[in-house]
């Protein structure tokens, strides 16, 4: 069976035959990866946009898009074309430089974060030794983009939305970090590939007893808040602040916020899948047995995307069933409940890791 890593390896061998200069070779390879990444991210956000509409329609006893293309699958393309043709208005009284930079900061941040995610065995853009740390630190840059957008718009709704968002992301980052640390403590490594390999005899959610389960739940709650999706969509809060921090944006600049939102959604779900549900690792129980071998026949990327999209579905499910929290309840939830629980949880996980009580 040909694996994805073999394909990338053969491309690398062919390229190094054609290009002898080592610097030029790596630049070429980076360019190829970059172009593929950009294209696939846009496709991904198209698909997530379509999926969101279909999931929403499923929850709301209606059909969803069903006119453009087979089963409405080209609707999102039509919408994107519409956004492309719309005027990207810049309000007169806005801070024009910040206003126009903010969407790019959002998109660039999300594209940076996607680098260390492992899609399949050996199929990864950048297997850095600080993978988890890198993701959690770079992703927090996006709050700057939101604050810039809200402040520079010179709109009171935008400003309120941005301030809410700042408070929200800064607080929920703590919980996300602590729940990620739970797995790092158990694995002893920040490297994504190590974390996946450590789950070869069972995913952490099964191996790690209740503390890991708690960490997983906290991770899901906090990451929903981190990417500003309902029930934590206070930064947007349609019924309160019309559209929150991106009230003044239109056309492609608005589409960039949307793109960033969907890629962020993918990233947090991919992180959740990698750390808690084994990433591309098939469902294994114990060491060498027939069940494990049978599971190995399903390719790694199927497992990875299966788990990721399951988590994405769960987060979409939240969005279409829950009402929104109020800002003080949101901060209470984090500082009074999630943060203390995660702190105690870290202690439990550490005890489990030290005594090797996990399976």
């Amino acid at each position, binding site marked *: 069976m040909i694996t994805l890593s073999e394909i990338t390896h053969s491309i690398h061998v062919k390229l190094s035959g054609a290009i002898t200069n080592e610097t030029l070779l790596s630049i070429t390879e980076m360019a190829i990866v970059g172009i593929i990444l950009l294209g696939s991210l846009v496709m991904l956000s198209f698909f997530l946009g379509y999926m969101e509409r279909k999931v929403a329609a499923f*929850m709301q006893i209606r059909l969803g898009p069903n006119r453009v293309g087979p089963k409405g699958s080209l609707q999102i393309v039509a919408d994107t074309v519409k956004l492309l043709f719309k005027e990207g208005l810049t309000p007169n009284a806005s801070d024009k430089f910040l206003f126009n930079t903010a969407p790019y900061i959002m998109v660039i941040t999300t594209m940076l974060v996607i680098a260390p995610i492992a899609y399949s065995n050996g199929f990864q853009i950048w297997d850095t030794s600080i993978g988890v740390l890198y993701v959690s630190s770079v992703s927090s840059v996006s709050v700057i983009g939101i604050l810039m957008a809200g402040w520079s718009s010179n709109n009171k709704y935008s400003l309120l939305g941005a301030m809410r968002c700042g408070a929200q992301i800064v607080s929920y980052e703590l919980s996300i970090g602590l729940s990620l640390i739970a797995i790092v403590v158990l694995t002893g490594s920040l490297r994504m590939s190590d974390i996946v390999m450590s789950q070869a005899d069972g995913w952490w959610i099964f191996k790690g007893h209740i503390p890991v389960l708690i960490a997983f739940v906290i991770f899901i709650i906090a990451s929903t808040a981190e990417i500003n999706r*309902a029930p934590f969509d206070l930064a947007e*809060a349609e*019924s309160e*602040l019309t559209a929150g921090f991106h009230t003044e944006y239109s056309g492609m600049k608005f589409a960039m916020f949307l793109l960033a939102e969907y890629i962020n959604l993918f990233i947090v779900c991919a992180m959740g899948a990698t750390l808690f549900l084994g990433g591309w690792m098939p469902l294994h129980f114990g060491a060498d047995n027939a069940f494990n071998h049978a599971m190995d026949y399903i390719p790694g990327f199927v497992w990875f995307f299966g788990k990721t999209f399951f988590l994405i579905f769960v987060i979409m499910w939240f969005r279409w069933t829950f*009402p*929104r929290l109020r*800002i003080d309840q949101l901060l209470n939830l984090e500082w009074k409940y999630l943060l203390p629980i995660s702190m105690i949880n870290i202690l439990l996980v550490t005890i489990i890791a030290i005594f090797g009580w996990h399976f």
Partner: protein
Amino acid sequence: MITEDGDFVINIGPQHPSTHGVLHLKVWLDGETVKKVEPHLGYIHRSIEKMCESLSYRQYIFSTSRMDYLSAHINNQACALAVEMGLGVEVPDRAKVIRTILAELTRLASHALWWGCMGLDLGAVTPFFYAFREREFINDIMEETCGARLTQNFIVPGGLMADIHPNFVSKTKELIKMFRANIDEYNQLLTGNVIFQQRTKNVGFLSKEAAISYGTSGPVARASGVSCDVRKHYPYDAYDRVQFKEILGTAGDSWERYVIRIDEMRESLSIIEQLIDNIPEGDIVAKTKQVIKLPKGEFYSRVETARGELGVLLVSDGGSTPYRVKFRSPNFSNLSALGHIAKGSKIGDLVAMMATLDLVIPDVDR
């Protein structure tokens, strides 16, 4: 705009997703906390009262459909009652019962829409679609019988414009069955939700005294413990021949107002259930003159719309058109309480409170 006191002033509306129409709220904020709310009215003022002065007593009924467009039938009913009072005609039993059934159907449709919008204002989009399922069914029943889905215009002085459609009874029975089951679904989806309960409990407190002094009525006043159901206290049409409870609350917060409307839906269903099998045979309209002329004097009728007490004052100088018409609309009084209950709350709660007041802005401005 930052005022001299350092307050942050925002204008919610007249174009805003949660004001449900063209209401304009000027809100003084301290961070997220609301310091003062000032409703600005008049964006949809059509001077219906003045228009009515040049319409005949048959015509003026229909101009009121677009006041509270979610209670169009009940508005018409109030106007017809005032004319009937002036004429002193006795409405046939059949017309009375059908009017009452249609009024309760209107109340159900209105409450269903309110429930959907309540979820929408709190950030849950899905309830809206579930609410529309029932509302569409009711609108279909209305369309078959009255010819219109929203502004029924089915009432004439002395009775009804036409008889009911042959499907009316069976479809209404189907609706009762479906709606009963779906109220449980409403509770599953929204009422039982922890976030929803936290958002509504202990916010937007309206005391009994304040409810009376602001002149609130309907579910808003009943949530504060004011017994004010016109159907109970001053029965009109067929309300004196049905058994129903007046739902009263005590807490007066947003949650209580929510629960009361949910319970009212059940009561409305039971009222329809009692009447639907007992529609008497007979005429649908009492005989009146072609051109109605009311005797000189003042005539006042009141009904319970989905939002509260609607009063109609007719002043007649003996001619064929009213000398003066005045509507006491429930939404205007209910809106006046908003500034009182919203003080000191967060913006998110202000929107939730507005949802529990269930405002229809064309009824405020008229």
